[in-house]
């Protein structure tokens, strides 16, 4: 994967990104209504509350949908690659990639893996369950 610029962070999302250095996937949980959400926000999308804490996310998810990108968005990007919307067992959906040698399909179970970034952080991705 080629990423031109360093991925930005902000004061709310930085702790989430720091956990990726230890390959820990977190979701943000609401202390009032219990909703799990991603990306981390200042307010809960369920109740508007601001008592939000990062907690460990399950490693499993389900492919909601996917697409194989055949045309590169920039000259230095290698194609093809597979993008997907994966629904975590905790509820939130992530835009992510499917990696590994398998034919994806909708509603397929997948498991977390990581794509390392040059600065030590990592991007959550998913692969077929063994």
């Amino acid at each position, binding site marked *: 994967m080629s990423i031109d610029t360093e991925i930005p962070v902000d004061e709310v999302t930085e702790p989430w990104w720091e956990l990726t250095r230890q390959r820990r996937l977190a979701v943000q949980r609401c202390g009032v209504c219990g909703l799990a959400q991603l*990306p981390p926000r200042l307010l809960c999308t369920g109740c508007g509350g601001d008592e939000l804490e990062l907690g460990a996310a399950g490693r499993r998810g389900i492919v909601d949908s996917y697409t194989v990108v055949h045309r590169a968005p920039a000259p230095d990007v290698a194609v093809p690659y597979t993008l997907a919307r994966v629904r975590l067992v905790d509820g939130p959906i992530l835009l992510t990639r499917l990696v590994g040698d398998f034919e994806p399909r909708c509603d397929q179970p997948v498991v977390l893996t990581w794509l390392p970034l040059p600065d030590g952080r990592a991007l959550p991705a998913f692969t077929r369950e063994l």
Partner: protein
Amino acid sequence: MTVAVVGAAECDLGHTGRSAQHLLAQAVRRALDDAGLRLCDVDGLATTSRLPATQLADQLGLCPSWTDSADAGAAVFERYVARAVQAIEAGQCAVAVLAYASDQRSARSRRLGGGYDRGTPEAQFEQPYLPLWPLSYYAMTARRYLHTYGLDRGDLARVAVAARARALANPAAFRHGAGPLTVDDVLAAPLVSSPLGTLDCCLVTDGGGAIVLTSLDRARHLPHPPVAVLGYGEAVTHAAMATPEDLLTTGVAASGARAFAHARREPADVDLIQLNDSFTVSVPLGLEQLGFCPPGSGAAWAGTPVNTTGGGLSYGHPGQLGVLLVIEAVRQLRGGCGPRQIPGARTALVHGTGGIGSSHATVILEAA
């Protein structure tokens, strides 16, 4: 119903070699000529954030009392129809011009990856995966659509084939002289973001246009039969690709239902559907969400005519299709569209979609 569309015109379309600001001025002049009005009659002006109304007003020597320059993708012009009706009813302006133009083909300015603002959550959580924007979102919607209803790429290809057939009857269409398209042609075209191939995607052209609105009372003294704004509705659902719970429940449904309720009409009353077709999947899913046909059946739709110009797929797509959807509806409701005229067309539904299915606006127009 107190406000009508009285003027409608396209600027040059295709590969024009012209700059956007001059295409915009050309569109305004043509729409005013069509309306039988002059520049000095205009006191309301709306464009998009790409070429703000402030800029266009200066270019035209106007000091308008009502302007808007929102950033809501292609839905913005259907939304402006509603805003212009409200502004005219409130006495904020008497004659409103809504105009759009792009030189994206001549300027080669379209980028497959889109442009992410570094300040948005998507720049952190989506752009790093390198989606094509907006294409990959519609591709995932198409994949989910095919999976859910047991369809295949050939079913979506029929949408592109039908669009081409309509463009062949429209001399203004970019693909007018390109000859008919077959399902096999669409399937054989290179994949861009599966299951969508190049012929499942809209054209990239220069183009645009303008429409003119004023009170229905004044409209009755102008050259063309007025086209009244009967009702409108809007919906905004998401900005990020990961946000929607269900890719197949789109903002089209809520926006359309609001417009039908406001207009006191239903799908059976509609003679023409003008629907944003940036990608083939948008048409069947849109028809279903608007209530014209049951889920999963839209690709075989042969009812009320859709996108009589040939649409974004074969007529032209200057980045934001919204204003062109209204222009064709107005022409059809006036009559006189030649070989593509829908006989006796009286009521039209126009639906604009912006971003990645993010913002929606629906307008229902009727020959007054």
